[in-house]
C-alpha cells in the first residue's frame, strides 16, 4: 500500500512536471495558432533560439540564470517582431498550405544557421546550484529543477489567462481574431495588435525553450524533433482557447509518465494512441471551438 502510494505521488509529480515542460514549449504556439489563426510550424525555431540564448548567456557570458531567462524572452520577442513585419504578415490572409510551406522553409533555414553557428553537438546548460539536486518536501525528495518549472509555469498560465480574458488588450485581440474588418472599423489598430501578439507568442516560445533547455536538449534539429509535441498539445487542447492546451499538456504528461512507469513496453505508443482517440472523439480538441 505504501509502495503504491509512493509510486502514485512520483507519477503525479513527474507527470505534472513533464506536462509543464510540454506546456511552456507549446504555449506560444497556442497564442499564434489559437488566437491569431496562423499555422506557425516554425514555432520550434523561436523555442530553439530561446534555448541558445540561455545556454550562451549562462556558459559564455556567465550571466545569472533569471537574467538569462529574461533575455531569452526579450530577444526572441524583438527578433520575431522583425520577422513578423518582414515576412509573416504577408501570409495572414493566405491559405493554410502557403502558411505551412512558408514556415517549414523557415525551419530548414533555421536548422542550417544553427548548425553553422553552434555546431551539431548539444549545448551544455550551466544551471545555478539552487536548481540542482533535490528539494525535500513532506519527507520525500523532489528534483529542484522540476519543482521550479511547475511553479514558474503555474505563474505564467495565470498571468496569460488574466491578460487574455480580463484586460482590454485581451478583448481587442479576441475581437480582431473573430472579425478583423469589424475590429478595424471600430478603431482598433489590428496591425500593431497582431505584431504585439505575435511577439508575445514567440517570446513565450523563447521562454519555454530556455526554461525547458535542461530537459529538452538544445541542438539544431530541435524545431523538427519537437514539432510533433507542440502540435499534439495544441490540437488535443483545441484552437482558440488558452486553457485547452494547458489541460492537454497536463493530461499527456501525467498519462505518458504513468504508462512509461507501469507498462514501459507500451510507453512509446501511448501518447499517439491517446491523441488519435481524443481527436476521433472531439475533432476540435478538448476545449476547441473550431477545427
Amino acid at each position: 500500500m505504501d509502495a503504491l502510494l509512493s509510486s502514485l505521488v512520483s507519477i503525479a509529480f513527474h507527470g505534472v512536471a513533464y506536462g509543464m515542460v510540454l506546456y511552456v514549449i507549446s504555449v506560444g504556439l497556442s497564442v499564434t495558432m489559437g488566437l491569431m489563426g496562423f499555422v506557425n510550424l516554425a514555432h520550434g525555431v523561436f523555442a530553439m533560439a530561446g534555448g541558445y540564448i540561455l545556454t550562451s548567456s549562462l556558459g559564455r557570458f556567465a550571466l545569472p540564470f533569471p537574467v538569462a531567462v529574461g533575455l531569452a524572452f526579450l530577444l526572441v520577442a524583438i527578433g520575431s517582431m522583425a520577422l513578423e513585419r518582414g515576412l509573416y504578415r504577408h501570409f495572414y490572409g493566405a491559405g493554410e498550405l502557403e502558411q505551412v510551406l512558408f514556415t517549414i522553409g523557415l525551419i530548414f533555414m533555421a536548422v542550417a544557421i544553427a548548425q553553422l553557428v553552434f555546431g551539431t553537438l548539444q549545448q551544455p546548460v550551466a544551471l545555478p546550484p539552487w536548481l540542482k539536486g533535490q528539494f525535500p518536501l513532506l519527507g520525500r525528495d523532489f528534483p529542484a529543477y522540476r519543482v521550479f518549472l511547475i511553479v514558474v509555469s503555474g505563474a505564467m498560465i495565470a498571468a496569460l489567462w488574466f491578460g487574455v480574458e480580463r484586460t482590454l488588450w485581451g478583448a481587442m485581440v479576441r475581437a480582431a481574431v473573430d472579425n478583423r474588418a469589424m475590429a478595424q472599423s471600430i478603431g482598433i489598430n489590428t496591425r500593431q495588435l497582431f505584431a504585439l501578439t505575435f511577439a508575445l507568442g514567440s517570446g513565450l516560445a523563447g521562454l519555454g525553450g530556455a526554461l525547458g533547455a535542461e530537459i529538452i536538449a538544445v541542438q539544431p534539429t530541435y524545431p523538427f524533433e519537437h514539432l510533433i509535441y507542440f502540435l499534439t498539445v495544441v490540437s488535443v487542447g483545441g484552437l482558440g482557447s488558452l486553457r485547452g492546451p494547458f489541460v492537454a499538456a497536463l493530461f499527456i504528461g501525467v498519462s505518458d509518465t504513468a504508462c512509461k512507469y507501469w507498462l514501459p513496453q507500451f510507453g512509446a505508443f501511448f501518447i499517439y494512441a491517446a491523441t488519435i482517440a481524443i481527436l476521433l472523439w472531439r475533432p476540435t480538441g478538448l476545449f476547441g471551438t473550431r477545427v
Partner: protein
Amino acid sequence: MKVARILTVVVALFSVVLFTGHSVSAQTVKVGFISTYSGAGAPQGDQLDKGFKLFMKLNGDKLPPGVKVETIVRDDTGPNPETAKRIAQELIVRDKVQFITGVLWTPNAAAIAPLTAEAKIPFISANAAGVAIPYASPYFARVSFTLWQACYPLGQWSAKKFKRVYTAVSDFAPGHEAEEAFTKAFKEGGGEIVGAVRIPLANPDFVPYMQRVKDAKPDAVFSFIPAGKQATAIMKAYGDLGLDKAGIKFIGPGDLTTDDELQGMGDVALGVITAHHYSAAGDRPANKAFVAAYKKEYGEKLFPGFFVVGAYDAMELVFHVIRELKGKIDPDRAMEVIKQYKNPSSPRGPIAIDPETRDIVQNEYLREVRRVGGVLANVEIETLATALKDPWKQLHPKK
C-alpha cells in the same frame, strides 16, 4: 592507307611500352573510404573523417618506392543501406578500388559486405560494429569493436561487484546486443537482473524509467543509450532523482560517454563507470602522441573519440597490407596479410585481427568519468580483459 596502318601499329606498340613502363615505375592503389557527411549522423561521420585525414597527413607517404595511394571518399548520408550499397557498387565497378574502408553504420556494412564477397574486395570496417557482419563476407575484417567485447567483460566484472542490476537500453539492435551480452555474463557470474526495460529511440523524458529503476532498489543500472543528448538526458534523470545518493551505480559500454561529447554532458556524467577499448585519456605513449597530433590538427579543445581511432587504425591496416604486398594487391593474399595483422602500439594499446573470425582482438578497459585538469575524461582505472576476442563469436561459431 598503308602509311596510316603502319603508323597505327607503331603508335599502339609505343603506347603499350609506355603503359607497362608506367605501371612498373608507379603502382597506384585505390582505396574507397565511406563515411557520413550529411544528415543527422554527420557529427559521427565527421569524427571518422578526421581519423582518416589525420592518418593520411601523418603517414600517407609511408609506402614502398613507386607505390602511390589514391583515396576516393563517398557520403552514405546516414544509416541508409540502399545508398551505401549503391556507392559501394560504384566504387567497385567504376572507380575500381582495391580496398573499401570507413562505414559508420551496421546496416550499411551489412549491405556492402555481400558485394565485397562477390567482387573479392577487402573491406575493413572502421566502425560498424554489428556482431555478425564478418559472417557475411570472407573479405570483411574489422578494426573497431563489438558491443559484446565491452559489455560481456563488464557483466563479469559487475557480477563480482553487484548482486542486483537493472538494465535500461535503447530499443534498437545495438541496445539489444549490449543487453544480451551484459545479462549473459552477469547471470553466469551469479548476479540477478531485477528488471529490464527497452526505451524508444525518440524519447524526451527518461524520468519515469529512472523512477522505476530507483523503486526496484538495484545495486547498479546498466545502460546503453546512443551518446549525445539521449545519453545526457538519461544521466540527468539519474542525477535529478538522486539515484547516486540512493547508492545505485550507473554503468555501461563506452558509447555512453564518447570523448568528444563528454564535455557537452557536463557534471552529470561524473562517476559513470564504462567499459571500452579506447579513451582519449589513456596514458599509453602511443595514445599521448595520437591525442597531441589530433589537437594540433583540429584544435586544443577537441578530443578524439573511438570513431577517430577506428578510422585511423583502419587506414593503418590498409597501408600495412599495401606495404607487405609492395603495392600489388591480390585480394586473397591481402586477406592472408590481414589475418596475421598485429599492431602492438595502436593508441588503444595492442591490437590484432583474429584469423578465425577476422574480427578485432583488443584490450577492454574499465573507466570512470572524472574531472582532470578542468575537463571531463574517461579515466582508465583497470584493464578488464587483455587480447579479448569477440565473445559472441566464441559462443556462436560459424557452421
